[in-house]
């Protein structure tokens, strides 16, 4: 097999796999290197939600594009990715949240997301008949948000890369980035094998900083531990992803394809680092938070808990950019939204790498930006 490709991708999560797919689709030979197995990092540990309700116009439009890709993905990838437009309902229990959601809805509608709307508590109850509406003022609801199955998506993209003549190397950790005269030349994996290309793309998610340092490029991405759990499958209750931003809230949804409930919450205080240990605190807290919103789930059984890494940038927005090293790119820092953003970011990143033209929707994702603003809908 040739040891030279048009582009090298470091990282076999959704961002690397989607970026690689769109490059391969455009005719480039792609070699993807993954330190473990596909989806073993953040992608395979996420809870599978896909929403368009963001707060900046660029991210909203990118997410509208991602949803279009998810709708077409079964055909595009030849794999059933279990896309289901079950919607997202953000719950507001206080005036401040309500005002913030109303302001967001205005921005989202102006960006073209027409089916997002404010629903009052009675409408929320109609959407989720089992919802406990005590103290609920209403919520932000978008019925075209949805869910998909992360493993099918990442394996689907990787399968297409191979079909298009590319190479997907698993259990192949990149240990060096080769360069010559200010240009990237390729990579070396543990074990000594070298692979050459004038384009190397850092899609390493929570390891993006480490991979950047192999090239002498600082990438401001820090991992943060987030825990999750999943239940046995039960009869489908046809409810959207519920998002509760209260201090004792969380996010959870039910998979349409097999009836399992899956959920997580953002810990306070945050837990920096790459640990994927799980805690007894989470295993008891998350069920309380779920039952507070939907008491009818009381007898549903939890079968597994785990943890994964969010890959955080200082402002909560991704990095999609070239670097000071010619030919070395960064597509990382998805801040817990990689599975949502992956298809559109992969498409936009591939276009940028190929042509140098920057999609306006990724204009704010520069590597050397000021990192001053913040994405509010975490």
């Amino acid at each position, binding site marked *: 097999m040739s040891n030279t490709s048009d582009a090298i991708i470091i990282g076999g999560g959704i961002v690397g796999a989607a970026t690689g797919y769109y490059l391969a689709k455009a005719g480039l030979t792609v070699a993807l290197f993954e330190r*473990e*197995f*596909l*989806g*073993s990092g953040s992608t*395979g540990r996420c809870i599978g939600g896909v929403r368009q309700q963001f707060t900046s116009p660029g991210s909203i439009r990118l997410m509208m594009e991602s949803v279009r890709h998810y709708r077409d993905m079964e055909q595009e990838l030849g794999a059933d990715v279990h896309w289901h437009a079950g919607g997202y309902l953000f719950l507001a229990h206080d005036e401040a949240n309500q005002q913030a959601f109303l302001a967001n809805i205005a921005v989202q509608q102006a960006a073209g997301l027409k089916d997002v709307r404010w629903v009052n508590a009675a409408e929320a109850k109609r959407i989720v008949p089992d919802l406990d509406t005590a103290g609920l003022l209403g919520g932000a609801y978008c019925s075209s948000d949805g869910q998909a199955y992360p*493993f099918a998506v990442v*394996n689907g993209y990787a*399968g297409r890369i191979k079909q298009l003549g590319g190479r*997907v190397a*698993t*259990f192949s950790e990149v240990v060096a980035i080769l360069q010559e005269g200010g240009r990237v030349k390729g990579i070396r994996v543990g074990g000594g094998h070298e692979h050459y290309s004038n384009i190397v793309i850092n899609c390493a998610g929570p390891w993006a900083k480490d991979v950047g340092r192999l090239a002498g490029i600082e990438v401001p991405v820090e991992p943060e531990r987030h825990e999750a759990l999943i*239940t*046995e499958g039960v009869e489908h209750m046809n409810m959207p992803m519920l998002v509760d931003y209260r201090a004792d809230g969380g996010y959870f949804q039910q998979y349409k394809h097999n009836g399992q409930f899956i959920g997580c919450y953002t810990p306070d205080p945050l837990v920096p680092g790459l640990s994927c240990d*799980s805690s*007894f*605190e989470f*295993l*008891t*807290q*998350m*069920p*309380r938070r*779920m*039952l507070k919103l939907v008491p009818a*789930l*009381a*007898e*549903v*059984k*939890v*079968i*597994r*808990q*785990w943890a994964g890494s969010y890959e955080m940038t200082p402002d909560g927005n991704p990095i999609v950019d070239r670097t000071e090293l010619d030919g070395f790119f960064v597509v990382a820092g998805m801040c817990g939204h990689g599975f949502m953003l992956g298809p559109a970011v992969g498409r936009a990143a591939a276009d940028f790498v190929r042509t140098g033209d920057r999609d306006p929707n990724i204009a704010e994702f520069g590597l050397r930006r000021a990192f001053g603003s913040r994405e509010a809908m975490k």
Partner: protein
Amino acid sequence: MATKELIICRCEDVTEAEVLAAIGQGATTADEVKRLTRAGMGHCQGRTCRRLVNQMLARNLGQKPEDQRQVTQRAPLQPISLKVLAESSD
């Protein structure tokens, strides 16, 4: 019994043929077989099938059992209702 009818993971109804297809697709670890087929993702969390999957990987790829990478075991050891967990003190 035909390989299409032989169940390896009885929680997720994964057949021997499906596990063999995952190995044919390039899976070399039980972790990958699990993500491709859902073997081990069901109610019992692989209690029955993980040994079978490892045997199939060993037989088809010439792996030594002692060199095989094991899937991560996670809590809870058996399914527990949300109610019981919610009423536990942390």
